[in-house]
């Protein structure tokens, strides 16, 4: 086995920033337990001390409601919250702060666009174009929008090796296509989709593009203006941040033309008994008390990612992905889902002949290895791939080549365990 080049950062030092990564699982009276190998980062990542400290510091020293109190703490809290917005803006290359809306997650961000933009702009006969590799959160809100407006939902197919079939794009992009909603990176296959090209072709056909960047922003450099995307959505908890905060980036003129989504405090300029006047951006889309501390935590997470460098993060994850393909391809009966490593992010999904994904995940867990098993909120994709369930290992920059080796060894043992003849022969 060739050894991968060392990452451009001190891996052991980085790992020591994440208290949970030194967990030892399943220790009993007579057994010492096994060290955690956390390979479920596409579901959610872990947090470094720096982010946890930013959260506790806020609660202990700076916390009050934002944009309301005429008092010192409220000013502090507001400053930190707005500073987090600026950090997000810079991290994804948005041109103005007002284009960054804090939501509670990717799912809410997509629902916001499907509701606000969708209800105002979609009508019977219009088409919404999705792809076969979308997460349920980028399917269901559009199915709901279609049901409300009479629009229809169409799907761009994938090829057998898990790439978007762009040859079908011209046929599916019709004068009735109003919006294309596509993942930048598939949460199951890891496929990195050519967003710039899709945006250019969609725009040429007169359609807007929403990019589900939940699996890309944490792992690779993002420039929403280079993409040319109209909306970009992602979550804080998949990039070291707290749960309960997400982002909607929207081009300013689109957001300004859209009606508010949720109604309540903060999103209004003034309210009378006769009606209301919405606030300016971004407050217009941030009704109620926003996820203040989570947003501040996300800001701290971005600081941490910037300190390591997103390019170095990306390079290390690619190494782990390549190594995983190499190691896992020696496991008998294992079949990868999706394209080869050079077309992927740090996500490796597979099926094993004769062993169900849940059994794999359960037995890997006994060895301290955390992976995801099931359909990963992508049932249409699994149907297309003709598999009921798959197992997914997903990496982040704090994962090590040794953990990938453990995954390979664990899978080989499981395969052997389920080979009846071998067991009885022992």
């Amino acid at each position: 086995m060739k050894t991968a080049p060392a990452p451009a950062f001190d891996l052991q030092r980085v790992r020591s920033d994440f208290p949970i990564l030194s967990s030892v699982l399943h220790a009993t009276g007579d057994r010492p337990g096994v060290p955690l190998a956390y390979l479920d980062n596409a579901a959610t990542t872990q947090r470094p001390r720096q982010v946890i400290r930013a959260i506790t510091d806020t609660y202990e020293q700076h916390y009050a409601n934002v944009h309301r109190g005429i008092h010192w703490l409220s000013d502090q809290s507001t400053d930190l919250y707005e500073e987090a917005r600026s950090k997000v803006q810079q991290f994804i290359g948005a041109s103005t702060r007002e284009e960054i809306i804090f939501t509670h997650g990717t799912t809410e961000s997509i629902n916001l666009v499907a509701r606000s933009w969708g209800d105002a702009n979609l009508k019977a006969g219009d088409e919404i174009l999705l792809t076969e590799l979308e997460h349920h959160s980028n399917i269901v809100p559009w199915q709901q929008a279609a049901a409300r407006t009479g629009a229809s939902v169409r799907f761009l197919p994938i090829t057998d090796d898990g790439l978007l079939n762009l040859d079908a794009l011209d046929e599916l992009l019709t004068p009735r296509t109003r919006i294309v909603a596509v993942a930048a990176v598939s949460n199951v296959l890891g496929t990195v989709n050519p967003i710039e090209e899709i945006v250019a072709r969609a725009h040429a056909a007169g359609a807007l593009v929403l990019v589900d960047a939940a699996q890309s922003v944490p792992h690779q450099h993002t420039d929403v203006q280079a993409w040319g995307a109209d909306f970009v959505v992602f979550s804080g908890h998949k990039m070291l941040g707290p749960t309960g905060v997400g982002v909607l980036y929207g081009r300013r003129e689109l957001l300004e033309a859209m009606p508010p989504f949720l109604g309540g405090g903060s999103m209004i300029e003034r309210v009378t008994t006769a009606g209301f006047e919405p606030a300016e951006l971004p407050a217009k889309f941030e009704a109620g008390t926003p996820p203040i501390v989570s947003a501040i935590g996300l800001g701290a997470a971005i600081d941490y990612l910037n300190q390591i460098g997103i390019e170095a993060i990306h390079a290390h994850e690619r190494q782990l992905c390549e190594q995983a393909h190499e190691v896992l391809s020696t496991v008998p009966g294992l079949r990868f889902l999706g394209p080869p490593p050079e077309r992927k992010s740090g996500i490796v999904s597979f099926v094993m002949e004769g062993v169900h994904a849940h059994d794999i995940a359960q037995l890997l867990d006994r060895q301290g290895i955390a992976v995801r098993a099931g359909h990963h909120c992508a049932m249409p994709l699994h149907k297309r791939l003709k598999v009921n369930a798959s197992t997914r290992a997903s990496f982040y920059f704090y994962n090590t080549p040794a953990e990938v080796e453990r995954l390979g060894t664990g899978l080989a043992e499981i395969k052997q365990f389920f080979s009846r003849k071998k067991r009885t022969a022992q």
Partner: protein
Amino acid sequence: MPIEDELYQERILDHYEEPFHRGQCPAATHAHEDENPLCGDVVRVELAIEPDGTIRDAYFSGDGCCISQASASMLIERVNGKPVEEVKAFSGQDMLQLFGAKLTPNRQKCCLLAWRALQSAVYSPLPAAPLPASPRSDPADELLRG
């Protein structure tokens, strides 16, 4: 490191790898298929019930994890040849007990899949159920039903 696990004990693996009555039930009179969308497990139960209410033959087919398929095999073995009334009285708790190994709530769903399919199957006569005395139905029909 050897795999030692209550969940994957020999008795359960035996049922998973050498299941009891896995396949199509000859002259089935009742059948039901159920699935667990969370994990994609599928179990179909086919029964040949005599006019006197005895389950002459019980079979299952399906696809899924060790728990769902082993529990199906155990259940089918248990109810094969039993009166249908006894099967109706067989509770989910009885099923978990029959399975034996301790299960987390998520895996309990796997274990109860075949039991759910069976409980529906006893109330689901097949539209063209052949009379007990009639010759075996056309395999093509069975394929269509499967």
